[in-house]
């Protein structure tokens, strides 16, 4: 169980902003922080990890206070024992894949965990390579494995998949879910990708301007409650064109482009680049094996 109350004045590219959030995360949950860039998502992770100091607040993990501003408790990053996967992976260039993992071992810790993690994230073939000879997805797997060597209870992932292509993303999402379940982790993920969030997380915090605007399970947060769709997908509007009396909206869903007919009233709020839900109510979808 993680309970956190965080207050922090941040200086962002667009000016100063007050971060004011409360999080409450059950053990074993995978929770996502969602919101536009510069809204304070990474700062929240960094404060939980102890890499950034909060102006005031409390962080309680499984009954232990990592941070309590009033009682002047503030654990160092070293004391907090978390797994952290950085956006740029932060692998040590001077060490091989294996050495990167071994570096994370605690004094006297059993070395078997290294073999175990290497095989979980399928790095056997790459273990003697240096990180800068690996692809983005491979580096990501190393970073994930390294973060788990100390057997942390909390895993923090800062947009771990943003630099990868869609196929690689989906593979790595599976790796993350696998270790999340296998090691019974409490995981906090920062992500922009609604598809990814719906696939992975139990709960999502939507952030805007340093504040939580919506909390809930991912499906209900991203799908409008008025809708009881039989099947629905989220996608991005890539084109809107008018055709006689109707409009044709082209939506990118994952890898697929679909064209949806819309009334003028439906497209007033829509612009290219918006995230939308494509849902159907009245018809039964047909499944064909390919």
């Amino acid at each position, binding site marked *: 169980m993680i309970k956190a109350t965080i207050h922090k004045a941040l200086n962002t590219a667009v000016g100063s902003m007050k971060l004011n959030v409360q999080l409450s995360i059950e053990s074993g949950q995978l929770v996502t922080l969602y919101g536009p860039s510069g809204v304070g998502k990474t700062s929240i992770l960094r404060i939980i*990890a102890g890499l950034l100091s909060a102006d005031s607040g409390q962080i309680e993990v499984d009954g232990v206070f990592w941070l309590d501003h009033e009682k002047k408790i503030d654990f160092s*990053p*070293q004391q907090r024992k978390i797994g*952290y996967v950085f*956006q*740029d992976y932060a692998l040590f*260039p*001077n060490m091989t894949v294996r050495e990167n993992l071994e570096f994370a071992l605690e004094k006297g810790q059993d070395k078997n965990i290294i073999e175990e993690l290497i095989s979980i994230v399928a790095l056997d073939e790459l273990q003697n390579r240096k990180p800068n000879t690996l692809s983005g997805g491979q580096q990501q797997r190393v970073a994930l494995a*390294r973060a788990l060597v100390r057997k942390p209870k909390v895993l923090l992932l800062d947009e771990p998949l943003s630099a990868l292509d869609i196929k690689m993303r989906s593979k790595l999402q599976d790796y993350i879910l696998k270790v999340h379940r296998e090691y019974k982790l409490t995981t906090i993920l920062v992500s922009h990708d609604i598809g990814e969030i719906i696939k992975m997380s139990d709960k999502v915090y939507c952030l805007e301007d340093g504040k939580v605007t919506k909390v809930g399970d991912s499906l209900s947060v991203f799908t409008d409650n008025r809708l009881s769709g039989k099947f629905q997908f989220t996608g991005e509007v890539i084109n809107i064109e008018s055709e006689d009396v109707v409009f044709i909206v082209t939506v990118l869903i994952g890898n697929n482009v679909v064209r949806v007919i819309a009334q003028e009233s439906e497209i007033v709020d829509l612009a290219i680049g918006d995230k939308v839900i494509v849902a159907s109510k009245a018809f039964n979808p047909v499944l064909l094996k390919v």
Partner: protein
Amino acid sequence: MIDWAPIILTTKLALVTTIVLLIISIPLAYWLAYSKSRIKPIVETLVSMPLVLPPTVLGFYLLMAFSPGNSFGSWLQDVFGIRLIFSFSGLVIGSVIYSLPFMVGPIQSGLSGLPNSLQEASYVLGKSKLKTLFSVLLPNIKPSLLTGLVLAFAHTVGEFGVVLMIGGNIPEKTKVVSIAIYDEVEALNYSNANMYSLLLFIITFIILLFVYLINGGYLKRFWK
């Protein structure tokens, strides 16, 4: 035939100075690279001063400070029995101060050039600052360390003003090659002066070439 003592002395001075500098510069450069202290600009300026100051100025003040006629110099002599003036240890201290920016500069810029996340990743993995410095930061700035080492060494080899001011010209004690050259020219022994000069020229050329070869990756490519 030339006297080899100045050459041996110069080599010894440059080696000792470089080792002392390495030990001092790593913590200093670390502090300069990561500190947000308000006095940082002042320390930075002081470290860089020898770059622009005439060596004689530095030498003059060190001479004043170390002279037994002064309070600091006499205190050193009374308490520790050390006399820094006209001695090898005095030369080392002078050279260390004089070559400090050549060692601190490359290490500091090497450290500042590393992504912060490397350091943070190590902390999050439970490693202390010291462990992080020696296992993560320093191994990843090897080219900067090499540049610092070699520049400090070569700069000490070529030093003249500071040495002359605080060391004087005592054979086998403080008479380094650069001073020996000056000496020979004064005595109109041009061929000896030429020998010393040529030697310095070749040594510094080889040292610097070596750095550029290594840091430019030429040697690695050659071996592959």
